[in-house]
């Protein structure tokens, strides 16, 4: 696929790829004397002009606190902020936009679940099931809950291909399992997990299902009803939105039964020194002034994604990823980590005899931004016996030329260390 290839999908607005790239001003710059090649989108995506404009217009025209304001600016800001719930609900096929809780990001969303319904449902001797592929954000909150409650954290193993091994799922999931929390896509190696199968099994033992969609929401269509999950968490900044925006979606009957998390303004119905009654879902989980601008920006990011279509985005990224995997696999002294049947967005690798951190520095000197490190997945790195890997990750604005630059930068790294 070249720069001129259209991202096309029947029934959706057709956008030329060259146009898409030009919508991301941050991509248009020179780094260490080379045009920027941004291959770190799994860490955070660049932001299109429409998202920047939404942030700008909120701060320039509608800047005001939301809810309870009788003046025009507050009404406008409130409408814009609340309107984003509808957009999120549409994106993930939720039936009720009140099931959408705004948070700072995936990490906060998962912590919210762990600290509220987690404390209600998990007791001594109970079990929580996660997987070897998880990001620390989907490990540590559950570990903390287990420590507090005297519960046990169990882990679905993974194979050398970087896929979850589900052979023993029926023993890992048992009558003690209270919560199953799984990442949709591995941030470290890009594996797409069969979460539907895991959630169906979890349902049979009565466990709650939590989906960490941080790495999938901008790459794969997500349907919370089809996946049959109870909670879904994602971050705005990995889907072309601003940092500081995030979502926890949960089933209404669960959200309704949950205690509030943080106490403060905006999450109450009435307060007296004798006691407080809480606001309805979702506002009872949104104490204090939220990041209004970031949420409005998230709305623009969802509009951006839908204007192209997730299927079209996925198809475009998959061509690039498959091409990268093929070409990287042919590089002498390079080992790709994991070989999952289904992989989106990211590929992780190491170069023989060169530490990933050194590769990262050398690539940066060529203008190529990749991530070198443990990717907040230290248990997975331990499984592969590696301190770190190099990860290249793609987004809608990525192009074939990026893969070529990546390969050239790898040769530079090899030359420096020859």
């Amino acid at each position, binding site marked *: 696929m070249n720069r001129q290839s259209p991202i096309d999908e029947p029934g959706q607005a057709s956008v030329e790829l060259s146009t898409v790239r030009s919508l991301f001003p941050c991509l248009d710059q020179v780094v260490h004397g080379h045009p920027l090649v941004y291959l770190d989108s799994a860490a955070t995506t660049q932001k299109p002009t429409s998202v920047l404009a939404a942030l700008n217009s909120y701060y320039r025209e509608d800047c005001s606190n939301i809810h309870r304001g009788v003046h025009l600016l507050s009404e406008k800001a409130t409408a814009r902020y609340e309107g984003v719930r509808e957009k999120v609900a549409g994106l993930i096929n939720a039936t009720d936009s009140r099931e959408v809780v705004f948070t700072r990001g995936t990490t906060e969303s998962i912590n919210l679940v762990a600290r509220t319904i987690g404390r209600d449902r998990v007791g001594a001797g109970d079990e929580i099931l996660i997987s070897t592929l998880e990001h620390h954000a989907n490990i540590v909150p559950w570990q903390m809950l287990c420590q507090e409650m005297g519960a046990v954290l169990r882990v679905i193993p993974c194979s050398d291909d970087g896929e979850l091994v589900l052979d023993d799922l029926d023993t890992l999931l048992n009558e003690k399992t209270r919560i199953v929390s799984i990442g949709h896509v591995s941030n470290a190696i890009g594996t797409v997990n069969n979460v539907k199968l895991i959630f169906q099994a979890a349902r049979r033992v009565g466990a709650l299902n939590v989906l960490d969609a941080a790495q999938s929401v901008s790459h794969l269509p997500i349907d919370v009803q089809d996946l049959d999950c109870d909670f879904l968490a994602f971050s705005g900044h990995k889907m072309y939105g601003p940092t500081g925006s995030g979502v926890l979606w949960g089933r209404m009957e669960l959200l309704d039964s949950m205690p509030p998390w943080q106490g403060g303004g905006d999450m109450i119905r009435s307060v007296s020194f004798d006691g407080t009654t809480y606001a309805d879902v979702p506002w009872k989980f949104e104490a204090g002034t939220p990041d209004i601008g970031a949420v409005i920006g998230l709305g623009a990011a969802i509009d951006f994604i839908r204007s192209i279509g997730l299927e079209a985005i996925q198809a475009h990224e998959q061509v690039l990823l498959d091409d990268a995997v093929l070409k990287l696999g042919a590089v002498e002294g390079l080992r790709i980590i994991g070989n999952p049947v289904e992989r989106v967005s990211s590929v992780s690798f190491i170069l023989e005899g060169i530490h990933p951190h050194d590769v990262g520095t050398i690539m940066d000197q060529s203008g190529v931004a990749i991530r070198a490190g443990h990717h907040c997945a230290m248990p997975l790195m331990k499984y592969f016996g590696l301190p770190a890997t190099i990860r290249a990750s793609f987004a809608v604005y990525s192009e074939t030329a990026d893969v070529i630059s990546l390969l050239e930068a790898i040769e530079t790294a090899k030359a420096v*260390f020859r």
Partner: protein
Amino acid sequence: MSDLRELYQEMILEHSRSPRNFGPIENQNLSARGYNPLCGDEVEIFLHRDSAGILQEIAFEGCGCAISTASASILTEVLKGRSEAEVREIFSEFRGMVAGDGSPPSRDGLMKLKVFGGVKEFPSRVKCATLVWHTLIQALDEQDGEVCTE
């Protein structure tokens, strides 16, 4: 490429491939561990400090990038036989070179440390070069726990 050659000087590459004084020593009486969570670099340093405060033996073990491995390897070479007080002064000078005014350590026998002068142009790599030094100071201070660069 010129900045890269400045950073990855031949001596750094050579020490990273064949680190000196690698592995525990039998008569160690001080040790410490260091960790850089950013890149996963781990280092453990082993010292034999005599009653006069002279570092008679220095060795290290660990895995890390070329900069951190070479820094550890060269450190063990240039500091062996020096007094604890002098080592602390050299650390201060080394830090000045990689993260301060850039001037290299001045005293005799420290020429090899100058190969890390290029690190100054790579702020994200300063911790790689200094991790083993912080770990060494931790060992000399006889403090428990692990040094962390973050």
